[in-house]
């Protein structure tokens, strides 16, 4: 915890000082965890996260600077945007894991495209089924087959999320080879999201044609 440059009071977030009400301008790279005053860890208490968003939002939201000089209003605009972005990232399990892997020096998604070997075999089956269904999405029984496919993808997604949580608790050390595993699991999740999105599109396409 550091001190406010204006009133020297201890501050919880580098975005603003609760004691003197000044909106601060954090310099350099400030992590989302720092912006929300949370310790670096995979697991985050959602209610604590919401509480902090509420508390800090009250310090920096431009609504409270409606009558303030332009410069101060602008600082509130920027601080609010940073707070909202940090919250959005931390509130999303996949986005948070992705950020953590990169922050700890692990591979970025564009550098490590591998999927776990066992998963590849599953993917082949799913792709085949998905292709068959997208070729004939009006065929009898297609809707229930889509549902079944979606269910197995969702089940695998839950497994993947659990694996990511396990691999990141406690946090691996900087540059640890274990981070590659996490990245691969995240690749699994992004494949699943895409496939589920395609299923959703097929479903709504059917609805529209009906």
């Amino acid at each position, binding site marked *: 915890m550091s001190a406010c440059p204006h009133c020297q009071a201890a501050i919880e977030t580098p975005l603003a000082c609760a004691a003197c009400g000044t909106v601060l301008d954090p310099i350099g790279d400030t992590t989302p965890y720092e912006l929300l005053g949370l310790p670096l860890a995979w697991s985050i208490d959602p209610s604590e996260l919401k509480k902090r968003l509420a508390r800090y939002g009250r310090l920096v939201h431009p609504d409270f600077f409606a009558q303030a000089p332009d410069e101060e209003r602008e600082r509130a605009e920027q601080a609010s945007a940073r707070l909202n972005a940090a919250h959005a990232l931390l509130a999303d399990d996949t986005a948070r894991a992705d950020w953590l892997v990169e922050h700890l020096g692990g591979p970025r998604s564009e550098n490590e495209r591998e999927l776990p070997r066992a998963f590849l075999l599953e993917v082949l089956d799913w792709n085949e089924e998905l292709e068959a269904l997208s070729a004939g999405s009006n065929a009898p029984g297609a809707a229930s087959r889509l549902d079944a496919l979606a269910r197995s993808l969702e089940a695998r997604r839950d497994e993947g999320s659990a694996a990511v949580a396990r691999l990141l608790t406690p946090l691996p050390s900087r540059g640890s080879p274990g981070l590659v595993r996490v990245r691969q699991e995240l690749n699994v999740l992004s494949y699943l999201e895409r496939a589920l999105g395609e299923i959703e*599109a097929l479903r709504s396409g059917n*609805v529209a044609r009906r």
Partner: protein
Amino acid sequence: MPYIELNVLNNTATDVAVGIDLGTTNSLVAIWRDGRPVVLAPEGRSGLVPSVVYVPSEGTPVVGREARDQAVVDPRHTVFSIKRFMGRGLADVRSELAARPYSATQTERGLVQLELRGRKYTPQELSALILMKVRDVACAALGGQPVTRAVITVPAYFDDAQRQATRDAAHLAGLEVLRIVNEPTAASLAYGLDQRDKGNVAVFDLGGGTFDVSILAIEDGVFRVLSTNGDTHLGGDDFDERLAELARSEIGPVAGARVLEDPGFQQAVRLAAERCKIELTAQPEADLHLVVPELRLNWRRRVTREEFEGRVADLLQRAMDCCRRALSDAHLKAAQVDEVVLVGGSTRVPIVRARVEAFFGRKPHTELDPDQVVALGAAVQAHILTGGKRDMLLMDVTPLSLGIETMGGAVDKVIQRNTTIPCAATVGYTTYADNQTGLDFHIVQGERELAKDCRSLGRFQLKGVPPMPAGLARIAVRFHIDADGVLRVSAKEESTGKSAQIDVQPMHGLTDLEVEGMLKAGFAHARDDFQARRAADLKIEIGTMLHATEKHLHAAHGGLDKETYRDLEDAISRAREAARQDDGTALQKARDELERATLPLAALLMNNVAQKALMGRKLGDV
């Protein structure tokens, strides 16, 4: 009793800030008093000002109840639902105009004008007349205290042009706009006062002409909008119209088509239908009763509540579909919604309440008058913005995604819809050709995957990028949406610091129907979009691969055996052929083929590079 705040220093009345619900059907004003918002109304009256303007043959236009009374007598000079024309071009409102008994033109800037008694009125002017009337009501209720500042509400789906038109109307009426606030979010503020300190709230706002549903999370006095959805052409007017259709279908064959086209008849049908609907709220049966003396028409028809409910079933289904999408965007299930709030006069209809209750599995709140909720919330927001109340905060979202058109015509979404504002996002771009010195950016708004299907918000150019090989420039484009919902875009080349900045000002803005159409089309076309997007992306990838392959092939082909070389040439020509079409499967195949065929070339290049590096080291060692 009148209540005037006096400034003790100079003994003059202070200006007050009010909240105004400028509605399609009715308008209302409220103010913060003694720790809570209250509606401002003349003694013994509701305070509701019908959003109707009547232009008499002599004298100044009349607004409100008196204007509405003229509707049947003189429909040609009575304007209803002017809100639907705000910030629109003539083409946007053609279907709206078809049912109206007056003519309309367009200014050279594309603004609609209605012609009444030979004078042209813009929607802004007519809305300003309504706002002045509302201000006078407030001023009278406050015992003559001047009212100069206001928070004005708009539907969540209003785009920049419509919000701007609302601002302009207020300006014409002599009001300073503190903030334009979304109606459903204002409603949640009104209800939030004595509510729980934590939980999820659904606001179901079915007004005269528009429907909005918003999902909010409340945490320690902070209201955060999680998602918003709606339909800009769904409301009580549509319910009335279903009864009006019934009347027309039964009167037409008897009285003749000429009667149906009579403007006096049209207005009378509308009012009779509305009356019947209202009566059906309190009783199981009511009369649809129509009297037009000039046409010697006196027609009566019994309507049961059940029949009425059958005729509006599809309208209700549309509303419930919006609710489902809003929940899904908020990542919540119906059971996780702790409170349901009803807003808008149409939520008095029993079947509406029943459907909402069934959908969310809980009884909705009806403690506040649904016609007053929005104005009360606007007053709360006015109080916050004038520095009065720091223990409550409303965090709103942007209703549509914003993005940049890519080389292939797809959209790179920079800010997703339902992102909390203020928000900012930066995306990186690079040059596509060697020594390219300028980049054009096309900013679009909407949910579709291709830029041509989204609404264009503006274009801008970044010039002066230093010449360098394709792909080396680092251009950062930053979007910022401020608390008022206005977008600012800036671009910067990071190696030189060259920058360009624009404020995005849409020409006419998006039409409601377009927003709605885009959202709907976003679902209906999701499949087509997915393919089109895939094809566009593959084309770019193939282009980049061809560029790189040809560049190196010339220098390195000596190192490749004949067969490999021919194989590669074949793959290149097939890829070129595929890139001329939009067939995603063929493109994918050509791309994969090209990748496979270039592997030996890549290996050769890697060897060359490694050898050169080793040679360099040897030279250095010497």
